């Protein structure tokens, strides 16, 4: 058996395909739009995003949905590249959590 990382799924056993089709959740649509626009502006490259997503632990990779992985990778890249700051993200997240009616 060749060694493989947890994102390398080809040929593994798995259950039936869930063929249900549904529209994106609003936050998924926002994440999708953000990623494509940031890629088109050269904020980061597709392979950088893939690398970040692959750096999730096996459990997180499996349990996180597709757009959760994208959002994670985007946040990490923007932090690493200094586009956003840790403190700035904390402040913006707090403001949005409050605005959206949630709590920290």
């Amino acid at each position, binding site marked *: 058996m060749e060694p493989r990382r947890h*994102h*390398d*799924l*080809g*040929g593994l*056993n*798995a259950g*039936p*395909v*869930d*063929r249900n*089709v*549904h*529209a*994106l*959740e*609003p*936050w998924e*649509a*926002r*994440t999708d*739009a*953000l990623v*494509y*626009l*940031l890629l*088109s*502006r050269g904020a980061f490259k597709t392979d950088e995003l*893939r690398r970040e*997503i692959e*750096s*999730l*632990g096996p459990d997180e990779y*499996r*349990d*996180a949905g*597709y*757009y*959760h992985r994208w*959002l*994670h990778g*985007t*946040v*990490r890249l*923007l932090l690493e590249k200094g*586009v*956003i700051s*840790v403190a*700035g*993200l*904390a402040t*913006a*997240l*707090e*403001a*949005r*959590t409050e*605005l*959206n009616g949630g709590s*920290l």
Partner: protein
Amino acid sequence: MGATRVGPSGHEAGILQDDPSALADAVADLVVAAGILDRNTLEAAVAARVPGPPPVAPVIVRAWRDPEFRARLLSDAFGACVEAGLVLAPTWPRAVVLDNTGDIHHLIVCTLCSCHSRPLMGVPPAWYKAHEYRSRAVREPRAVLAEFGLHIDQARPIRVQDASADLRYVVLPAPPEGWDRATDAALATTITPEVLLGVSLPRLG
């Protein structure tokens, strides 16, 4: 608020527990404030992400009607799509159209992530991005197709395309029964992401 905690392993400690909606909004606020994206462009892009017909649908219909155009689509997909009026930014990964009208049935998967041709197909269905499809499509394509209700004759070879690198793929399906009596608009509605990925066949009415 785990988005800002980076553990010793380099993994985010709690990002997956965050409210993704607040996090997506917060990131959007920051990149807008940084001047990387403008708010109107972003909101327009978000609003455009609703289910709809794949952009390449009318191009496929034209390929059914016009054999010379069909040949161009198969040899230079982006060139033919631009000729047919699609707007394709130079930054989009190039696409290749695989011919499902002949002896071989093509099926498309991306086992390493979920590569797909966004400008031709639109947003892919959730199953295309799910572990089950990414795991099984390469090793047991007939069983996976059967789950989609598509039974490929045992005498017809299947070719799986794993979209692993810089190119993206869609299939050119065979036209549905009765296509020569149908309008272009009716034919275009038979082209779905499922059809373009090779797990379904176009069907009229």
